């Protein structure tokens, strides 16, 4: 029953929190750039406006994949917040991501396919670290089940500092922040236009936005896991992590894809593997 309520709360609250987070993001970013920035609720206004816009598409398949992207992103989050299996949640997240990429491929447009390929490159970049994070959590807690990980009531962060840092590193990719915002850019006038999302407009774009809110909440849930033994600290860690990502976003220029892969793999191979090795020898 409790699990059911939490899952329900996630379904309803995640987009609200995610949207607020996006609004917060835009205000903080604006302040960092000495601007005032939009109101906190601007992301909601944006999405509502997108819903009302004309539904333009290149073909009739493409929006269907976006619907799948949204649905599987919600399922992923539900798996995680219902206390299910972390590894399965990661696999479901991959599946959701693949649907987004397929939507962009389906549109058969030069810019969207460049975006799709870059998205795949980014997935290739972060996948090892994400799996290593799951490996580390399993080694520290003896389970992949999120519910049991929390029930352990141990500060996992002290056992998994390297893995946590590695995870924060790849979260920059997942939050679509600079220097790794390779597959979609915030601004339509840049070299890849809007990359992955070039051919999506109106309601489809709104769905991508909402899916992204769900995704961000899920990712922050992952951060929470490391501090879950003491909820106030966990909430603080989540906010600080997101603030840090915004800070990085505003202080780095977009990099080339090679670096995204090389650096992410290097981080996974050093921080991630180092942490796993330490756990192995200490156990």
């Amino acid at each position, binding site marked *: 029953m409790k699990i059911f309520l939490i899952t329900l709360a996630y379904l309803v609250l995640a987009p609200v929190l995610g949207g607020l987070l996006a609004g917060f993001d835009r205000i903080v970013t604006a302040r960092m750039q000495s601007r005032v920035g939009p109101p906190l609720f601007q992301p909601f206004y944006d999405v509502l406006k997108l819903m009302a816009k004309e539904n333009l598409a290149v*073909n009739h398949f493409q929006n269907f994949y976006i619907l799948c992207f949204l649905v599987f992103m919600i399922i992923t989050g539900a798996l995680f917040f219902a206390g299910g299996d972390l590894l399965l949640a990661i696999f479901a997240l991959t599946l959701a991501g693949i649907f987004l*990429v397929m939507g962009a491929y389906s549109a058969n447009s030069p810019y969207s396919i460049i975006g799709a390929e870059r998205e795949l490159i980014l997935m290739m970049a972060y996948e090892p670290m994400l799996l290593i994070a799951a490996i580390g959590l399993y080694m520290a807690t003896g389970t992949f089940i999120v519910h049991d990980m929390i029930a352990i009531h141990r500060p996992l962060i002290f056992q998994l500092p390297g893995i946590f840092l590695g995870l924060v590193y790849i979260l920059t990719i997942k939050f679509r922040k600079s220097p790794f915002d390779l597959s979609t850019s915030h601004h339509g006038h840049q070299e890849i236009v809007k990359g992955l999302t070039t051919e999506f407009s109106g309601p489809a774009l709104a769905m991508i936005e909402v899916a992204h809110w769900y995704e961000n909440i899920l990712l922050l849930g992952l951060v929470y896991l490391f501090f879950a033994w003491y909820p106030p600290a966990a909430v603080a860690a989540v906010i600080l992590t997101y603030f840090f990502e915004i800070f990085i976003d505003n202080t780095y220029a977009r990099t080339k894809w090679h670096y995204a892969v090389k650096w992410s793999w290097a981080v996974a191979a050093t921080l991630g593997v180092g942490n796993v090795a330490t756990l192995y020898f200490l156990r």
Partner: protein
Amino acid sequence: MKTLFFLMAFPLLPAVLLAAVSAARWRNAIVKMSSVVLAAAAVALGVAHVKGGTSYYAVEGHWVDGALFCGEIGLSLYLLVKGFLSRRYVVPLLVVLQTGLMIYSEFFGGVVSAERDLSVDNLSVIMAMIVGVVGGLISIYSLWYMKDYHAHHPEIPNRTRSFFFVVFVFLAAMFGIVFSNNLRWMYFFWEVTSVCSFWLIGYSQTEEAVQNAFRALKINLLGGLSFALGIVYLAFVHKTVDMSQLLAMGQAAALIPAMFIAFAGLTKSAQMPFSSWLLGAMVAPTPVSALLHSSTMVKAGVYVIIKMAPILQNTAAGFVIALIGGVTFLLASATAVSQNNAKRVLAYSTIANLGLIVACGGVGTFEAVWAAILLVVFHAVAKGLLFLTVGTIEHEIGSRDIEDMHGLITRSPALAIFMLIGIAGMFLAPFGMLISKWVTLKAFIDSNPILAILLAFGSAPTLFFWAKWMGKLLAVPHTPRRTAGQIEPEEWTALLGLAVLTIGACGLFPLIAAEYIEPYTMQLYGHAFSLGYANLAIMGIMLGALILLPLGFFYFPKNLKYEGAYMAGANLPGNLSFQGSLGQPRDMIIRNVYFRAYFNEASLSRLGNWITVLLIVLMFVTAEL
């Protein structure tokens, strides 16, 4: 026991008949009927053996031993002649060495036969079903394929009769391998599969085909030699050639012969540094690739390694074998990124997946064995489907280049969907490979996390190369052209059959696990791994969602306004071209990325070969210690 004998002997009947008749009508009838019979017999064995333990059978009299011995001599003579005629003297050398060893042990070893020649357990039943059902479907597919192949290649001598003869002998030998408890018998069937694959790879007799066939032969004979060494060691030191006694004699005593047999398994399952033979095998007609990659040959390699798993468990040598598999998985997956030839991508993916299975076998714990068997099942059906679909696509569009498959979903929706099912089956949740990967990861962490890390790094390129291929298939070009070709009934049967098996295996896997795999590990280890019911529920939901999703294709959104793809505002009418920088029209051409500079085939294979050669040396050294 009757069924075992039937499965091993029956394929010889159609083999001989097919070699004799030349009328296409008769051939069709014989192949179809015997494929159905084989598949039915294999499934019947499976049904009869639900939750069954291991049964052993002794074969009365020594006539079978004698017959097999004669067969062995016959094969050796065939290979000697082939080797000398083509001036490839390594072949006769290897043949003389291994046959010499076997003859020596035959006359001076004292142990000629095992107490119990045949055995059947849950693992061999699963293997038999794969060989019977997948192998049968591939044979049916070959009927159409070979006809069309010769119509397209008039320069290649038509040896279809011998082709089907060899295919059925191959299937018989596979049943032989999985049912043999007598290692000498298994060795004989092992050699038969090597010779059959040699013949099939060299089918077209072009220079390249002959070259690659001999490469495959040499590598597999090297494995055969190691197998023979293992048997001779067992016969002299432990006075037995019985597989069950090998498994029962305790790790310390069994490790050295197990190493020799596992080495043979590594060659046959195309692990680095032996992977080149499987890549070269692509020159053969596509059904041969499908056969080698999915239901036969390479599966024999991983089968013996899985069999040896209890001996390898928690040993340094077993860990080294697991490392060989892990390294192969990582490097083969990475290499697949750089390939645009569909069959090569499939070949690298096979090598990678076999690497994973070998790694599980090397780890050897009950979880790992559980995962390995499930990987074998899922890989067999999905890879069979993928190869056969690529074969049909090649005939439809005249190319096996992934770039040419752009927009296949509009040009030939059925083939694209078969392709997508196969690809999804290889790497996407909730399909089987991923369930197995999930257990594999758990087994690896519980054993040694370095393997889990190899898996983590290898999964990333896997995701990349499959997804970009899927994207190519799903792109919707602005001017859809239907392909001209038509899919023949034989192709439909095989493709649809394998597609249903790929999806079905995913729905039925809890059943496969509960009825066959869990009893198997229970019997060997006293433990059985079982997925929690919560996870099964989640899998069910996801499977349901994935089945519901295709309905979306029948949904045509209203109020959708169509626009041309964005080309920086320089679109020319028709939206297929744009205005170039000098004002001239330019066609929109979309290509995938292959990153040849980073995922370089030559340097990755060199790296892999060095590492794995060192590991193999290490494997034997640690086994001796």
